[in-house]
């Protein structure tokens, strides 16, 4: 799809340049809408009766080619989909892939509760923020509606996280949906065989529904249409997930086909979020380690190929850390600058005896060093050199950390007046240019650890002042 032009959007605005939106012109506001920096609600005149036609046209125009489907309720509710583009560099991806972890109803209630708590409590620190998992997928392994109901009850008593209720049996889902009433669980799944009954449950309980037709794009599109025609507007598509091998290639191809149909061709049946189930890696798995690696590999490839939600099994840290980092990377807004300003930064309240660290102006590098120092409660100065936004190792290789660059930041920052000592700690990987830096600055250059997480231990061995 051609991205919206400001002109298209402008035509659906009042066009009176009244500035009530806080922007100078309707045209400028149109650009903000396209970038999703503002919403139609920011333009009060639009809601006057005389502009009702424009208002309707605007809402239609701005609705993304991948519908935004909300799963869950309250603060922890998650938005799936809502995407505008195939390639993140064309704009950005908006709603990070929802990561759901399975719980099965054959477990005793206390085990269900402890697993659900583990999912909820999972967290990895990453430069001052915590990466979290998003939800729980309760699957009916027993085939028994009553057991499923107990599992759902146990989960709702334990967590506010969004839920996916998983069974092909409408009676099972009905029991679950009624227990999770007001929690807006996602129902997995309507198939060509059972969809009418599942749709009934969904309509009655106001739930979004997964349409599932493994490996058959046309079948899935037809099913999606049937479900929509029956009155459900919040649909999630499932084209199936295969294990690593030719089947996975087919899965990936189908994901691209679905997203292209949605974004580039605006085929109504395809304009929904997509769900993947990397958990298939656990079917007949050789070992937990094998399954863990395969599950993560499948998940990574699906996350990169537009999946808006995934159902996984392993809550192991070693497996989920890479996935959470991948999601963080892919859903980072590419419009945000990659670099921080090259200047002197302070951590805590440094004084004349505080250590001085050198790093590069790649935003992530700077924030990593700063948050490590903060976490270790080390008041310090950080001299950030202008390496054109490149990380330390890349800067070294690309000759972006040079004596000239360091001299520049030295004189600009006035660091010589701020500390009594004359010692500069440089990143371990820049050891090679120690001599050059000594010549350029006249300071004693101390080669620091290769990772800023090791600074506290390093400072104990190598006191600065």
């Amino acid at each position: 799809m051609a991205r919206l032009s400001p002109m298209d959007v402008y035509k659906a605005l009042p066009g009176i340049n009244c500035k009530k939106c806080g922007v100078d012109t309707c045209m400028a506001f149109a650009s903000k809408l396209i970038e999703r920096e503002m919403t139609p609600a920011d333009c009060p005149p639009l809601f006057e009766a005389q502009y009702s036609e424009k208002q309707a046209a605007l809402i239609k125009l701005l609705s993304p080619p991948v519908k935004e489907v909300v799963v869950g309720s309250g603060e922890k509710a998650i938005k799936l989909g809502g995407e505008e583009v195939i390639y993140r560099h064309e704009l950005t991806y908006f709603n990070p892939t929802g990561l759901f972890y399975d719980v099965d109803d054959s477990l005793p209630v206390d085990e269900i509760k402890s697993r659900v708590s583990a999912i909820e409590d999972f967290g990895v620190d990453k430069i001052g923020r915590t990466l979290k998992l998003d939800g729980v997928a309760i699957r009916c392994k027993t085939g028994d509606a009553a057991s499923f109901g107990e599992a759902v009850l146990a989960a709702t008593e334990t967590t506010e996280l969004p839920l996916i209720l998983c069974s092909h049996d409408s009676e099972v889902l009905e029991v679950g949906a009624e227990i999770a009433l007001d929690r807006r669980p996602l129902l997995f799944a309507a198939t060509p065989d059972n969809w009418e009954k599942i749709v009934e449950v969904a309509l009655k309980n106001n739930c979004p529904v997964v349409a599932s037709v493994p490996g058959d794009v046309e079948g899935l599109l037809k099913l999606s249409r049937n479900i929509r025609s029956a009155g459900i507007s919040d649909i999630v598509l499932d084209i199936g997930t295969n294990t690593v091998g030719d089947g996975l290639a087919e899965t990936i191809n189908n994901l691209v086909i679905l997203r292209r149909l949605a974004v580039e061709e605006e085929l109504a049946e395809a304009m929904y979020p997509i769900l993947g189930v990397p958990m298939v890696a656990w079917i007949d798995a050789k070992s937990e380690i094998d399954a863990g690696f395969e599950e993560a590999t499948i998940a990574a490839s699906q996350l990169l190929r537009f999946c808006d939600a995934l159902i996984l099994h392993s809550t192991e840290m070693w497996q989920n850390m890479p996935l959470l980092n991948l999601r963080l990377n892919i859903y980072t807004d590419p419009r945000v600058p990659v670099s921080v300003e090259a200047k002197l930064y302070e951590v805590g309240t440094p004084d004349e005896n505080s250590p001085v660290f050198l790093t590069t102006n790649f935003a992530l590098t700077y924030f990593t060093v700063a948050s490590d120092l903060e976490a270790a409660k080390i008041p310090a100065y950080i001299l950030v050199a202008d390496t054109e936004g490149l990380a330390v190792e890349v800067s070294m290789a690309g000759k972006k950390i040079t004596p000239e660059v360091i001299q520049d930041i030295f004189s600009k920052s006035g660091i010589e007046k701020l500390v009594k000592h004359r010692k500069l700690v440089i990143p371990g990987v820049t050891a090679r240019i120690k001599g050059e830096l000594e010549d350029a600055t006249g300071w004693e250059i101390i080669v620091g650890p290769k990772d800023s997480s090791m600074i506290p231990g390093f400072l104990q061995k190598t006191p600065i002042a």
Partner: protein
Amino acid sequence: MNLEELLSSFAGADEIELENVTIDTEELILKVQQALIASGMPSVAGVGVSPELAPLEYKVPIREYKGSVAEVQLGATKSEGGTRKHVVKLGAQKSLYWFEGGIVNRPVVTFDVFDVAPPLPRAIREHVEDVWHDPAEWAKKAVKMGADLVTIHLTSTDPNNQDSSPREAAKTVEDVLQAVDVPLVIGGSGTPEKDPLVLEKCAEAAEGERCLLASANLDLDYKKIAQAAIKYKHNVLSWTSMNINDQKSLNRLLFDEGLTQDQIVQDPTTGALGYGLDYTYSIIERMKIGALKGDEELQMPISCGVTNAWGARESWLNNDAWGPREHRGPLWEIVTGTAVLMAGADIMMMLHPLAVKTVKDIILSMTGEKKSRNVRYEDWLTV
């Protein structure tokens, strides 16, 4: 013809005539209802359905592309003037996605081998400890572990390392060429003053083998490297730092030296997972799309240093809360590799054997050479 299709093709017709078909009436009524719902017609039973639905029209969205990626051959057989048993061909794509044009040349993995090993994370060290004082043995082991090619990094030539001479480096290259019969990537030490001299000498020693000289970049005497490649029949890696405009300029400069598209591989720099991978991912996508749109300065295969994954602390740091690093590390490299592969990488430089195997498994999935385990999708519900 199946009944549903038959019925949907009648949807909207006033009269339906069935010839030579026997169906029981109840089934027919049910199917008619379903078909009508599916085609958006008001159903017999009057269930509320939207009247605006058109029949489902859908074609697999395959695109036409104006441009294509050049094909670069690494390695030369005897008849081609080299001594390699296998050659590797990169690039030659005419389309963006696997389903659009099939896999022309499958992406490949090259194992990193060092003449003097740098400090390696433990997860890797334990796999190569027995060979890491002998690059030739290391290269052999790499091939056994599934490498399509071997990259010999001549780290010892760094003046701050052993400052070994270009001649000594060339000797190492000869040893590795003797030891294995796969194509070679020859890497310097990242020392701008010295790399051109080292690569030139190695190019001479490996004359005719169509190695990949790694690398030419904007901060060193790329002309010397380009000329060595032309004179001794090799290819050049054109390496820049996460900047597509720099990449285009360097490629253009290499063209000016007389290299052609089929002698250049480009490397826009791979950021580690969690530390800049996003830039790499999007730059590769932009490069591939640019190439297919017809931008001649971008129509070369793409190389990625997936090994950079090990620069991320999460891959190697010993931290109980993060789980065992012997799994975490290789998975960090696997996910980094998967990302650049999906973005469009043609050759990946990698380090951990399990990461190499897993990424190759994905590549062989694409080509269909690796079959999926025989499982029923629905079984995840009850596993």
